[in-house]
Protein backbone atom coordinates (compact mmCIF):
# COMPACT_ATOMS: atom_id res chain seq x y z
CA UNK A 1 0.00 0.00 0.00
CA UNK A 2 2.88 2.40 -0.59
CA UNK A 3 1.86 5.51 -2.48
CA UNK A 4 3.39 5.40 -5.89
CA UNK A 5 5.61 8.36 -6.59
CA UNK A 6 4.62 10.09 -9.84
CA UNK A 7 7.19 9.82 -12.62
CA UNK A 8 9.38 12.93 -12.74
CA UNK A 9 8.44 15.32 -15.52
CA UNK A 10 10.82 15.57 -18.44
CA UNK A 11 13.36 18.36 -17.83
CA UNK A 12 12.28 20.13 -20.99
CA UNK A 13 8.71 20.42 -19.74
CA UNK A 14 9.89 21.89 -16.47
CA UNK A 15 12.24 24.37 -18.14
CA UNK A 16 9.71 25.41 -20.76
CA UNK A 17 7.17 26.10 -18.05
CA UNK A 18 9.68 28.16 -16.06
CA UNK A 19 10.55 30.20 -19.16
CA UNK A 20 6.88 30.74 -19.92
CA UNK A 21 6.34 31.99 -16.37
CA UNK A 22 9.28 34.38 -16.70
CA UNK A 23 8.06 35.74 -20.04
CA UNK A 24 4.64 36.18 -18.59
CA UNK A 25 6.04 38.07 -15.60
CA UNK A 26 8.34 40.41 -17.55
CA UNK A 27 6.13 40.69 -20.65
CA UNK A 28 3.13 41.74 -18.59
CA UNK A 29 4.67 45.09 -17.64
CA UNK A 30 4.10 47.71 -20.39
CA UNK A 31 7.15 49.79 -19.41
CA UNK A 32 9.43 46.73 -19.61
CA UNK A 33 8.16 46.14 -23.15
CA UNK A 34 8.57 49.85 -23.97
CA UNK A 35 12.27 49.68 -23.06
CA UNK A 36 12.46 46.25 -24.75
CA UNK A 37 14.14 44.73 -21.67
CA UNK A 38 14.49 40.94 -21.91
CA UNK A 39 15.54 38.36 -19.37
CA UNK A 40 17.87 35.46 -19.88
CA UNK A 41 17.50 32.64 -17.34
CA UNK A 42 20.01 30.06 -16.13
CA UNK A 43 18.32 28.06 -13.38
CA UNK A 44 16.98 30.71 -11.06
CA UNK A 45 19.57 33.32 -12.10
CA UNK A 46 18.33 36.12 -14.33
CA UNK A 47 20.35 38.43 -16.54
CA UNK A 48 18.49 41.43 -17.88
CA UNK A 49 19.30 42.67 -21.38
CA UNK A 50 18.70 46.21 -22.61
CA UNK A 51 19.19 46.21 -26.38
CA UNK A 52 20.67 49.43 -27.70
CA UNK A 53 18.39 51.78 -29.63
CA UNK A 54 18.87 55.38 -30.74
CA UNK A 55 15.90 56.41 -28.58
CA UNK A 56 17.87 55.49 -25.40
CA UNK A 57 20.43 58.23 -25.96
CA UNK A 58 20.66 61.00 -23.37
CA UNK A 59 23.68 62.86 -24.69
CA UNK A 60 23.94 62.83 -28.48
CA UNK A 61 27.41 64.49 -28.46
CA UNK A 62 29.29 61.60 -26.80
CA UNK A 63 26.90 59.69 -27.46
CA UNK A 64 25.85 58.17 -24.14
CA UNK A 65 22.84 56.30 -22.78
CA UNK A 66 20.31 58.49 -20.97
CA UNK A 67 20.89 58.36 -17.21
CA UNK A 68 17.16 57.87 -16.78
CA UNK A 69 17.20 54.80 -19.03
CA UNK A 70 20.06 53.39 -17.00
CA UNK A 71 18.15 54.07 -13.77
CA UNK A 72 14.99 52.51 -15.20
CA UNK A 73 16.93 49.46 -16.38
CA UNK A 74 18.38 48.92 -12.90
CA UNK A 75 15.00 49.40 -11.26
CA UNK A 76 13.23 47.01 -13.62
CA UNK A 77 15.96 44.42 -13.04
CA UNK A 78 15.51 44.77 -9.28
CA UNK A 79 11.70 44.51 -9.36
CA UNK A 80 11.53 41.59 -11.79
CA UNK A 81 14.46 39.87 -10.02
CA UNK A 82 12.72 40.13 -6.66
CA UNK A 83 9.30 39.11 -8.02
CA UNK A 84 10.93 36.19 -9.85
CA UNK A 85 12.73 34.90 -6.76
CA UNK A 86 9.45 34.95 -4.86
CA UNK A 87 7.65 33.14 -7.67
CA UNK A 88 10.48 30.66 -8.11
CA UNK A 89 10.30 29.64 -4.50
CA UNK A 90 6.54 29.27 -4.78
CA UNK A 91 6.91 27.04 -7.86
CA UNK A 92 9.61 24.84 -6.40
CA UNK A 93 7.79 24.27 -3.15
CA UNK A 94 4.59 23.58 -5.11
CA UNK A 95 2.76 26.44 -3.44
CA UNK A 96 1.87 27.79 -6.89
CA UNK A 97 1.42 25.78 -10.06
CA UNK A 98 2.97 27.81 -12.90
CA UNK A 99 0.50 26.31 -15.37
CA UNK A 100 -2.42 27.65 -13.32
CA UNK A 101 -0.69 30.99 -12.96
CA UNK A 102 -0.32 31.29 -16.72
CA UNK A 103 -3.98 30.55 -17.27
CA UNK A 104 -4.98 33.15 -14.72
CA UNK A 105 -3.40 35.85 -16.95
CA UNK A 106 -3.21 38.62 -14.36
CA UNK A 107 0.20 39.44 -12.93
CA UNK A 108 0.83 38.78 -9.26
CA UNK A 109 1.13 41.99 -7.23
CA UNK A 110 4.62 43.35 -7.79
CA UNK A 111 7.03 44.72 -5.18
CA UNK A 112 6.96 48.54 -5.05
CA UNK A 113 10.02 50.75 -4.91
CA UNK A 114 10.44 52.74 -1.71
CA UNK A 115 13.72 54.38 -2.63
CA UNK A 116 16.45 53.88 -5.10
CA UNK A 117 20.06 55.08 -5.32
CA UNK A 118 21.97 54.97 -8.59
CA UNK A 119 25.71 55.39 -8.97
CA UNK A 120 26.84 56.24 -12.47
CA UNK A 121 30.33 54.80 -12.70
CA UNK A 122 31.08 55.58 -16.34
CA UNK A 123 29.04 56.78 -19.25
CA UNK A 124 26.76 54.21 -20.87
CA UNK A 125 28.02 53.35 -24.34
CA UNK A 126 25.74 53.10 -27.37
CA UNK A 127 25.65 49.31 -27.11
CA UNK A 128 23.59 46.59 -25.42
CA UNK A 129 23.64 46.61 -21.63
CA UNK A 130 23.22 43.80 -19.11
CA UNK A 131 22.26 43.74 -15.45
CA UNK A 132 21.90 41.34 -12.59
CA UNK A 133 20.17 41.82 -9.28
CA UNK A 134 21.34 40.42 -5.98
CA UNK A 135 18.74 40.17 -3.27
CA UNK A 136 20.44 41.16 -0.05
CA UNK A 137 17.34 40.62 1.99
CA UNK A 138 13.75 39.79 1.23
CA UNK A 139 11.62 39.94 4.36
CA UNK A 140 7.88 39.74 4.67
CA UNK A 141 7.43 43.49 4.21
CA UNK A 142 10.72 44.98 3.01
CA UNK A 143 13.46 43.95 0.64
CA UNK A 144 16.91 45.31 -0.22
CA UNK A 145 18.27 44.61 -3.68
CA UNK A 146 21.63 45.47 -5.23
CA UNK A 147 21.81 45.76 -9.01
CA UNK A 148 24.83 45.97 -11.23
CA UNK A 149 24.85 46.87 -14.93
CA UNK A 150 27.66 46.41 -17.41
CA UNK A 151 28.24 46.46 -21.14
CA UNK A 152 31.16 45.00 -23.08
CA UNK A 153 33.18 44.09 -20.04
CA UNK A 154 31.66 42.32 -17.04
CA UNK A 155 34.42 43.62 -14.74
CA UNK A 156 33.72 47.24 -15.63
CA UNK A 157 30.18 47.99 -14.44
CA UNK A 158 28.82 51.32 -15.72
CA UNK A 159 26.10 51.67 -13.09
CA UNK A 160 25.16 50.28 -9.69
CA UNK A 161 21.83 50.55 -7.97
CA UNK A 162 20.67 50.00 -4.43
CA UNK A 163 16.91 49.55 -4.17
CA UNK A 164 14.58 49.26 -1.18
CA UNK A 165 11.19 47.75 -1.96
CA UNK A 166 7.91 47.09 -0.26
CA UNK A 167 6.84 43.48 -0.67
CA UNK A 168 3.38 42.96 -2.14
CA UNK A 169 0.57 41.85 0.16
CA UNK A 170 0.70 38.09 -0.01
CA UNK A 171 -2.50 37.56 1.92
CA UNK A 172 -4.31 36.58 -1.29
Amino acid sequence: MTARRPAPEPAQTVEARRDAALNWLSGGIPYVRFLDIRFDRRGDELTALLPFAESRIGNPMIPALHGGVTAAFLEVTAIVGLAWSTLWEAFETGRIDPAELLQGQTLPPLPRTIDFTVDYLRSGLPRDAYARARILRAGRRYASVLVEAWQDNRDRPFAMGSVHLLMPDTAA
Partner: protein
Amino acid sequence: MTDILTAARRFIEQIPHARDLNMALTELGEGRARITMPYDPRLVGDPATGVLHGGAISALMDTASGAAVMCHPSGPTSTATLDLRIDYMRPATPGQPVTAIAECHHVTRSVAFVRVVAVDLDESRPVAMATGAFTAERARGAAE
Protein backbone atom coordinates in the same frame (compact mmCIF):
# COMPACT_ATOMS: atom_id res chain seq x y z
CA MET B 1 22.55 84.84 -19.94
CA THR B 2 20.31 84.35 -22.97
CA ASP B 3 23.03 82.20 -24.51
CA ILE B 4 23.01 79.93 -21.48
CA LEU B 5 19.24 79.51 -21.69
CA THR B 6 19.33 78.84 -25.41
CA ALA B 7 22.10 76.29 -24.97
CA ALA B 8 20.22 74.56 -22.17
CA ARG B 9 17.01 74.43 -24.17
CA ARG B 10 18.79 73.00 -27.18
CA PHE B 11 20.59 70.50 -24.95
CA ILE B 12 17.24 69.11 -23.82
CA GLU B 13 15.58 69.18 -27.22
CA GLN B 14 18.41 67.11 -28.63
CA ILE B 15 17.96 64.29 -26.14
CA PRO B 16 16.39 61.41 -28.08
CA HIS B 17 15.07 59.71 -24.95
CA ALA B 18 13.43 62.93 -23.72
CA ARG B 19 11.70 63.21 -27.10
CA ASP B 20 10.67 59.57 -26.91
CA LEU B 21 8.86 60.23 -23.62
CA ASN B 22 7.30 63.48 -24.98
CA MET B 23 8.96 65.58 -22.28
CA ALA B 24 8.32 69.30 -22.59
CA LEU B 25 10.39 72.00 -20.94
CA THR B 26 7.98 74.52 -19.46
CA GLU B 27 10.27 76.68 -17.32
CA LEU B 28 13.98 77.26 -17.30
CA GLY B 29 16.39 79.68 -15.76
CA GLU B 30 18.86 80.46 -12.97
CA GLY B 31 19.52 76.83 -12.15
CA ARG B 32 15.85 75.85 -12.11
CA ALA B 33 13.98 73.69 -14.60
CA ARG B 34 10.45 72.38 -14.92
CA ILE B 35 9.71 69.51 -17.32
CA THR B 36 6.34 67.85 -17.91
CA MET B 37 5.73 64.36 -19.24
CA PRO B 38 2.21 63.40 -20.38
CA TYR B 39 0.59 60.22 -19.13
CA ASP B 40 1.42 57.41 -21.54
CA PRO B 41 0.07 53.81 -21.36
CA ARG B 42 3.44 52.57 -22.71
CA LEU B 43 5.07 53.71 -19.45
CA VAL B 44 2.78 51.80 -17.10
CA GLY B 45 4.52 49.70 -14.46
CA ASP B 46 1.48 47.95 -13.03
CA PRO B 47 -1.17 47.01 -15.60
CA ALA B 48 -3.70 46.28 -12.84
CA THR B 49 -3.76 49.92 -11.72
CA GLY B 50 -2.37 51.81 -14.73
CA VAL B 51 0.21 53.50 -12.49
CA LEU B 52 3.35 54.77 -14.28
CA HIS B 53 6.56 52.83 -13.71
CA GLY B 54 9.04 54.47 -11.34
CA GLY B 55 11.68 54.19 -14.05
CA ALA B 56 9.84 56.66 -16.29
CA ILE B 57 9.63 59.10 -13.39
CA SER B 58 13.36 58.60 -12.72
CA ALA B 59 14.08 59.43 -16.36
CA LEU B 60 11.97 62.59 -16.07
CA MET B 61 13.67 63.69 -12.83
CA ASP B 62 17.13 62.95 -14.24
CA THR B 63 16.38 65.06 -17.33
CA ALA B 64 15.01 67.98 -15.30
CA SER B 65 18.06 67.80 -13.03
CA GLY B 66 20.44 67.91 -16.00
CA ALA B 67 18.51 70.88 -17.39
CA ALA B 68 18.77 72.70 -14.05
CA VAL B 69 22.54 72.18 -14.07
CA MET B 70 22.84 73.38 -17.67
CA CYS B 71 21.02 76.63 -16.98
CA HIS B 72 22.93 77.44 -13.80
CA PRO B 73 24.41 80.95 -14.01
CA SER B 74 27.93 79.49 -13.79
CA GLY B 75 27.36 78.19 -17.32
CA PRO B 76 28.49 74.56 -17.49
CA THR B 77 29.01 73.35 -21.06
CA SER B 78 27.94 69.79 -20.39
CA THR B 79 26.80 67.58 -17.54
CA ALA B 80 26.35 63.93 -16.61
CA THR B 81 24.75 62.27 -13.61
CA LEU B 82 27.15 61.05 -10.93
CA ASP B 83 24.47 59.75 -8.60
CA LEU B 84 20.78 60.10 -8.00
CA ARG B 85 18.83 59.05 -4.93
CA ILE B 86 15.09 58.85 -5.42
CA ASP B 87 12.33 58.47 -2.83
CA TYR B 88 8.97 57.33 -4.14
CA MET B 89 6.28 58.71 -1.89
CA ARG B 90 3.12 57.64 -3.66
CA PRO B 91 1.99 56.29 -7.04
CA ALA B 92 1.36 58.97 -9.68
CA THR B 93 -2.37 59.21 -10.41
CA PRO B 94 -3.13 57.32 -13.65
CA GLY B 95 -4.11 59.59 -16.53
CA GLN B 96 -2.34 62.67 -15.15
CA PRO B 97 0.85 64.23 -16.48
CA VAL B 98 3.90 64.21 -14.22
CA THR B 99 6.05 67.30 -13.76
CA ALA B 100 9.58 67.40 -12.39
CA ILE B 101 10.79 70.62 -10.80
CA ALA B 102 14.56 70.65 -10.35
CA GLU B 103 16.83 73.11 -8.62
CA CYS B 104 20.59 73.18 -8.94
CA HIS B 105 21.27 74.65 -5.51
CA HIS B 106 25.05 74.51 -5.39
CA VAL B 107 27.94 74.18 -7.80
CA THR B 108 31.64 73.75 -7.28
CA ARG B 109 34.29 73.88 -9.99
CA SER B 110 33.43 70.36 -11.14
CA VAL B 111 30.29 69.20 -9.34
CA ALA B 112 26.68 70.42 -9.34
CA PHE B 113 24.20 69.47 -6.61
CA VAL B 114 20.51 69.15 -7.43
CA ARG B 115 17.20 68.71 -5.62
CA VAL B 116 14.20 67.62 -7.64
CA VAL B 117 10.58 66.88 -6.91
CA ALA B 118 8.01 65.12 -9.12
CA VAL B 119 4.31 65.96 -8.87
CA ASP B 120 1.10 65.12 -10.70
CA LEU B 121 -1.89 67.50 -10.78
CA ASP B 122 -2.02 67.53 -6.98
CA GLU B 123 1.17 69.52 -6.43
CA SER B 124 0.72 69.56 -2.66
CA ARG B 125 1.49 65.84 -2.42
CA PRO B 126 4.73 64.99 -4.26
CA VAL B 127 4.98 61.69 -6.10
CA ALA B 128 8.74 61.45 -5.72
CA MET B 129 11.73 63.44 -4.57
CA ALA B 130 15.38 63.06 -5.44
CA THR B 131 18.77 64.54 -4.78
CA GLY B 132 21.67 64.14 -7.15
CA ALA B 133 25.25 65.05 -7.87
CA PHE B 134 26.17 65.91 -11.46
CA THR B 135 29.41 66.61 -13.26
CA ALA B 136 29.83 70.23 -14.34
CA GLU B 137 32.02 70.49 -17.41
CA ARG B 138 33.66 73.86 -17.98
CA ALA B 139 34.64 75.44 -21.25
CA ARG B 140 38.16 76.62 -20.36
CA GLY B 141 39.47 73.56 -18.61
CA ALA B 142 38.57 74.87 -15.16
CA ALA B 143 37.28 71.42 -14.20
CA GLU B 144 40.61 69.76 -14.91
